């Protein structure tokens, strides 16, 4: 290792998606200055092109898996899977954003640049093989997202949302960093594989208690990002306050990346603390499902409902993490992919429906949508059905695999409680459908226009993906199953 620190071409290829995102983000900002106010609207195609290029690079990198830059990142199938999830989430968010920004008179290149940076951070998280990279990836992702949450500077809700997210987020990251420091103190390394070796070596003298506490400290940082109980308190306020496309992205991209890094860190580095870890996640998973689903029942604001629902869904994924098995990991991966599409789809509808200044975000505003815009209502219903977990949608197989993995790992109690809480969830999703289909349209329908092309593409893409995952789940699941083994 000491001989050459010069990276090979393969190593650059393994970092290519991130490189593309960074370079294009920066170019976008430069172009914005050159383009002048009138052409700012035309920047979103560039962002889309950049994301598509990054996707292609991900596929190329996955063809030649391996570590890069002195084991800082590990571009394996697991990482590629999550890179694709993050990039898809980003792509859909960009598609929703362009009409949104035009509507709010906030077109600018920085928005897309920040989105691309945020995705860079998440891609790094998906592949990070080193706690320092984990921290840096998390910071890049978070800082960009903090700003995006408060992007509409003149909007008080945006500002409050961004400030809360920032303060609490930094607070939680501090725990993570503290945990990393402890691990370094215990094992003398920040590389995940070395940590694993040290911890499994009985002669290293590493105290299991100290390791456990360090792992718990790090978990707090991740749990905050995935909005797991009791670190979920920020999510409803932030999702409600942030611009709808940003909320859509936040609920899918950063969450998937945080799960990716959590799975990799705990499965790769901490096999020695299995039991304590499992109990901790068990409790967290249960609490997250219950709080998310029950709190959503009493909400009337669509964005808040979706925020709580996104908490609840994090709980389901945590059930898969609790299973602590290869099938559990694969189930979590599948679920996060399915969730990204159905949830962004739902947020895209809200983003379209809310209109300028996000005036219409109350549940009752949706009354009679089915009569005015049957297609939008039908697609929204599809996403909601998928979120419920109705068969032939991606959500169904996501839940199916998760609870199957949980049963295989003997987590009968958690499975039963999880299924009960997801039955509760059906109520608040169905309530939205009932309002759309069975209530008479009110005056909120007077100013409704047909969805902008970008939103339409996002809606149809998400719908198609949701259905494909529900009808042909094995294509994605097979890939997840083969790559889940890699992080063990």
């Amino acid at each position: 290792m000491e001989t050459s620190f010069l990276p090979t071409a393969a190593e650059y290829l393994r970092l290519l998606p991130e490189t593309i995102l960074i370079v294009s983000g920066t170019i976008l900002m430069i172009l914005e200055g050159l383009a002048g106010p009138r052409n700012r609207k035309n920047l979103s195609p560039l962002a889309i092109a950049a994301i598509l290029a990054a996707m292609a690079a991900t596929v190329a990198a996955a063809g030649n898996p391996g570590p890069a830059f002195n084991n800082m990142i590990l571009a394996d199938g697991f990482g590629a899977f999550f890179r694709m999830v993050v990039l898809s989430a980003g792509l859909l968010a960009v598609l929703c954003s362009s009409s949104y920004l035009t509507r709010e008179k906030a077109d600018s290149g920085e928005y897309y640049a920040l989105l691309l940076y945020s995705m860079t951070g998440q891609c790094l998280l998906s592949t990070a093989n080193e706690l320092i990279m984990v921290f840096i990836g998390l910071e890049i992702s978070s800082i960009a997202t903090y700003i995006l949450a408060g992007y509409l500077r003149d909007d008080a809700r945006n500002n409050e949302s961004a400030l809360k997210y920032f303060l609490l987020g930094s607070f939680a990251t501090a725990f993570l960093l503290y945990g990393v420091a402890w691990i370094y103190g215990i094992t003398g390394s920040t590389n995940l594989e070395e940590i694993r070796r040290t911890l499994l070596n009985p002669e290293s003298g590493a105290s299991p208690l100290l390791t456990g506490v360090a792992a718990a400290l790090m978990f707090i940082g991740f749990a905050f990002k995935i909005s797991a109980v009791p670190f979920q308190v920020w999510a409803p306020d932030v999702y409600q306050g942030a611009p709808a496309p940003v909320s859509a992205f936040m609920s899918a991209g950063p969450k998937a990346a945080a799960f990716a890094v959590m799975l990799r860190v705990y499965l790769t580095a901490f096999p020695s603390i299995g039991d304590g870890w499992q109990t901790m996640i068990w409790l967290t998973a249960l609490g997250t499902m219950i709080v998310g689903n029950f709190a959503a029942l009493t909400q009337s604001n669509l964005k808040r409902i979706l925020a709580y629902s996104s908490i609840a869904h994090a709980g389901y994924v945590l059930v898969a993490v609790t299973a602590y098995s290869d099938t559990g990991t694969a189930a979590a991966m599948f679920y996060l992919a399915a969730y990204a599409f159905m949830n962004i789809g739902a947020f895209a509808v809200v983003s379209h429906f809310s209109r300028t200044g996000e005036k219409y975000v109350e549940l009752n505003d949706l009354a009679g949508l089915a009569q005015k815009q049957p297609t939008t209502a039908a697609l929204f219903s599809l996403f909601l059905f998928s979120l419920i977990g109705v068969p032939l949608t991606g959500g169904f197989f996501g839940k199916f695999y998760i609870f199957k993995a949980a049963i295989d790992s003997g987590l009968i109690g958690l499975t039963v409680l999880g299924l009960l809480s997801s039955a509760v969830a059906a109520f608040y999703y169905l309530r939205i459908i009932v309002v759309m289909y069975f209530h008479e349209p009110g005056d909120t329908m007077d100013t409704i226009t047909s969805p902008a092309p970008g939103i339409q593409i996002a809606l149809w893409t998400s719908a198609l993906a949701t259905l494909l995952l529900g009808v042909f789940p094995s294509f994605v699941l097979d890939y997840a199953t083969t790559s889940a083994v890699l992080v063990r």
Partner: protein
Amino acid sequence: MHHLWLIPALPLAGFLVNGLFGRRLPKAIINAVAVGSVLLSFLWVLQVLNGLMPLETLYVERYATWIASGSLDIPYELAIDRLSAVMLLVVTGVGLLIHIYATGYMSHEDGYYRFFAYLNLFMFFMLTLVLANNYLLLFVGWEGVGLCSYLLIGFYYLKNSATTAGNKAFIVNRIGDFGFALAIFLIFIQFGTLDFPAVFSAAQPLPAESTAGILTAICLLLMVGAAGKSAQVPLYVWLPDAMEGPTPVSALIHAATMVTAGVYMVARSSALYLKAPLAMDVVALIGLLTAVLAATIGMTQFDIKKVFAYSTVSQLGYMFLALGVGAFSAGIFHVVTHAFFKALLFLGAGSVIHALEGEQDLRHMGGLRKKIPITFLTLACAWVAIAGVPPFSGFHSKDEILLAAHHHAPWMYWIGVVTAGITAFYVSRAMFLCFFGKYRGHHHPHESPVSMWGPLAVLALLSLGGGYTHIPQFLAPVFPLAEGAHDFTLVAISVAAGLTGIGLAWFLYIAKPGLADSIASNLGGLYKLVYNKYFVDELYFATIINPAIAGSRTVLWKFLDAGLIDGTVNGAGHMAQWVGAKCRRLQSGNIRTYATWVVLGAVLLIFTIGGVR
């Protein structure tokens, strides 16, 4: 590869085109898409069969893995054998005729495109059901046809009774589906697979269960599912109400195809049933009971569609009788002939209703023979077919069933014969009231367009000649031929019963009109009991529905009132709301409080992870 997937995919494509763009398309294109997709599907069935004949073993096409998780491995597989070939021909063939008919019948309705989109979607699910090679895919089709059925029953959604009927069908079928789902679980537990060939070959070496065992449980639960879908006692109550839907729907879904899905499913599972004689007996008894019960109710109804609806229930009972006594091929044979003549009866009834601008009451008809002659002639073909007059189609299939019943237990044969007589009676009664005597209504009847009577004519030919299709012989590779030679005496008795029924109807409604009413009034209580359908609906209300309402008024009242969800959240969800409110209180919006929660969570987590080791 014979591309079996094209068979269901074509109607699905039709559904997508009409469902997505139908609102903006002219009617001619909607027709072309809807009818064309089914026609192509029918032709493709012929093409596939042409390539696969003689098809003596199961032909399977595997497309992809559907669910693979641990020990559970379910592929996307479609399969075809002679049993599914028969069903495919019936579904696509009769379905095609009904689609053509519907283009005429529905031409003045709103939501034209919606109707055909649903109809095509129904075809997709029905064909999936028939082609499925495992229980799970069959269940998908099963649920899908149910969904389309509810949608189409409630098609006139502005009519209150239509939505109520849709809900009734939905709720009753949930009971059946619950049984079916449990059966599927049990099958998976017992055999570790859901594939038809694997399950059946695993069941092959098992001994027949003399007492109730796991196979009996599976078969009984399957029968619960079949009873829901195929309207058997005690779950038949939804089918008569389902006549609220448009008449082509009644013909296609609630007479010819969907309701026979239960028969198909039981026949498909014959390998399991043969190992559970106890369950077979239950199937036979339920079939017999349904046949008698529904036939007697049919005698007293005045709504022409209700008469035929009870007739359907009764005929389905016959089919289950056949299955229960082990004459699976006879049951399927009856499915086929019944599809012909019952579709014809419904479409003919639709033609009458169309001619009378919506009149359905037999008391306001009469003498239509001369006014709508084509409809009359075609309906007459269905009449002789269902009455069991030789040599028409109903005679052949009914005969097979009755002979098998006699072989199994003679008393079943005798009840079957009496029911055959009643069947002939009520159909004749409807025909006499409708077409003979003096016209008692005040509309001006007009003959239907060719798009409507064309399919009627084709179905009429099938009803007359359908008995010579030799279905039982064709199905011999799937089901062993029923034992017992044709006994001429038994055949003569059942034919005589049919003719007696016709004669009695002629006597009561043509020769001595008015006699029927006086008999009805003399019978008093008994007549009332039958006329009111044995008060089964009322019984269900008194024993199940009302107690349920009383017991959980908040839940159910709101359930129906505020549309399922609002109510449930308010009622049973009181506690949920309370919990939700507590959760929400955590959400004060105060960032300091939030930070405190974060630290509190940290403390708890660290204690957990440390405390467990």
